[in-house]
């Protein structure tokens, strides 16, 4: 699995800001729970489309995608540059792909990459998957629980069915919680941290454990959405008996929403490349409130 990645060009030093705002002890407690010491934020001229193009060119430095074989573009963002059309059409024009491509724009949050991969695997054709997010554009003033978590970034991936096999997937959502992590038009985003935390602990983790048990597979790696440091710590505590390798990068990059899992896998593979036949589990959770889980088998070394 090879990814192109991009991050917002401005760096927000959370640690310094919180030290000044709340004092060192409170800042230390806060970062212990949230994770990131710095965040990557879009510059004035950056947006989800420009970040996705940047990620695409980063991918092209690593591989030469055969665009003739690509039949779909699945583009994930909650912050398209216009209400319509979706970013996928602008992206397709920018990368000069054939005009018979099937473009699918999806409004999806932290489950985005898993949603897109699940869909692309079902489509049976080669697909470009783009995840790009700029939550900083939904935050006009500092809010302790939100402004300390989210980075802006993008990821690009070309799904080749010869390299990945779908074993099993599962989706779920919790009714009447959609407003608990949401953004109304022309307003700042809002997050009810207690409800989101409760959702991860009482819905995502139990469903994930049930999924793992039913799969009856030995899982070599688990890649979880990097919601916050405390959430990742809870996931590791509850799931380490099912898998020894659960990497994290929340402290280094922050929560990149739909681009989180691609960045996490990309960072992990630099240190620990995939082996043939490895079984990997991906789990995204958040906006909805929803979760998406997918179990994959790696075919060939990549």
């Amino acid at each position, binding site marked *: 699995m090879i990814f192109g990645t991009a991050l917002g060009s401005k760096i927000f030093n959370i640690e310094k800001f919180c030290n000044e705002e709340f004092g060192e002890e409170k800042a230390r*407690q*806060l970062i212990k*729970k949230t994770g990131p010491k710095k965040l990557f934020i879009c510059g004035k001229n950056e947006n989800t489309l420009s970040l996705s193009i940047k990620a695409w060119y980063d991918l092209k430095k690593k591989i030469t995608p055969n665009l003739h074989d690509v039949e779909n573009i699945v583009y994930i963002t909650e912050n398209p540059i216009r209400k319509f059309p979706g970013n996928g059409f602008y992206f397709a024009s920018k990368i000069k792909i054939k005009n018979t491509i099937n473009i699918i724009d999806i409004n999806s949050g932290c489950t985005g990459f898993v949603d897109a991969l699940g869909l692309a695997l079902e489509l049976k054709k080669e697909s470009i998957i783009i995840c790009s997010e700029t939550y900083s554009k939904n935050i006009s003033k500092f809010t302790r629980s939100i402004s300390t978590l989210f980075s802006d970034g993008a990821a690009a991936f070309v799904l080749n069915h010869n390299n990945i096999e779908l074993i099993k997937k599962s989706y779920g959502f919790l009714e009447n919680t959609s407003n608990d992590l949401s953004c109304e038009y022309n307003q700042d985003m809002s997050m009810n941290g*207690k*409800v989101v*935390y*409760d959702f991860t602990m*009482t819905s995502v*983790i139990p469903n994930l454990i049930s999924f793992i048990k039913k799969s009856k597979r030995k899982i070599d790696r688990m890649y979880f959405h990097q919601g916050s440091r*405390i959430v990742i710590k809870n996931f590791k505590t509850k799931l380490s008996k099912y898998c020894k390798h659960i990497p994290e990068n929340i402290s280094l990059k922050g929560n990149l929403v739909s681009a989180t899992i691609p960045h996490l896998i990309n960072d992990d593979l630099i240190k620990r490349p995939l082996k043939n036949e490895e079984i990997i589990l991906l789990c995204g959770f958040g906006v909805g409130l929803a979760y998406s889980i997918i179990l994959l088998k790696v075919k060939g070394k990549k």
Partner: protein
Amino acid sequence: MTNSKMDENVFKKLVAKALKVKISKINMKLKIGDLKEWDSLGHLAILGALDKFTKGKASAIQGLGTTNSLKKTWETLKKNNLAK
């Protein structure tokens, strides 16, 4: 503190320790925000302490994380057979 079913005194001690305040400041009428230490971070600290004491059982209770007062938290624990 032992890991048996908790009583009210143990519960208060856990909350006080999580919030890093004296136990004399803790009463069952307290609501989130009544103490400056009980903000969203303090709330996570309380949940973490309860989960540790109950060996992971507290975090599986739906709605425990969204309780807004110690009375509600205590009643939820009792309802789920983790407190007496």
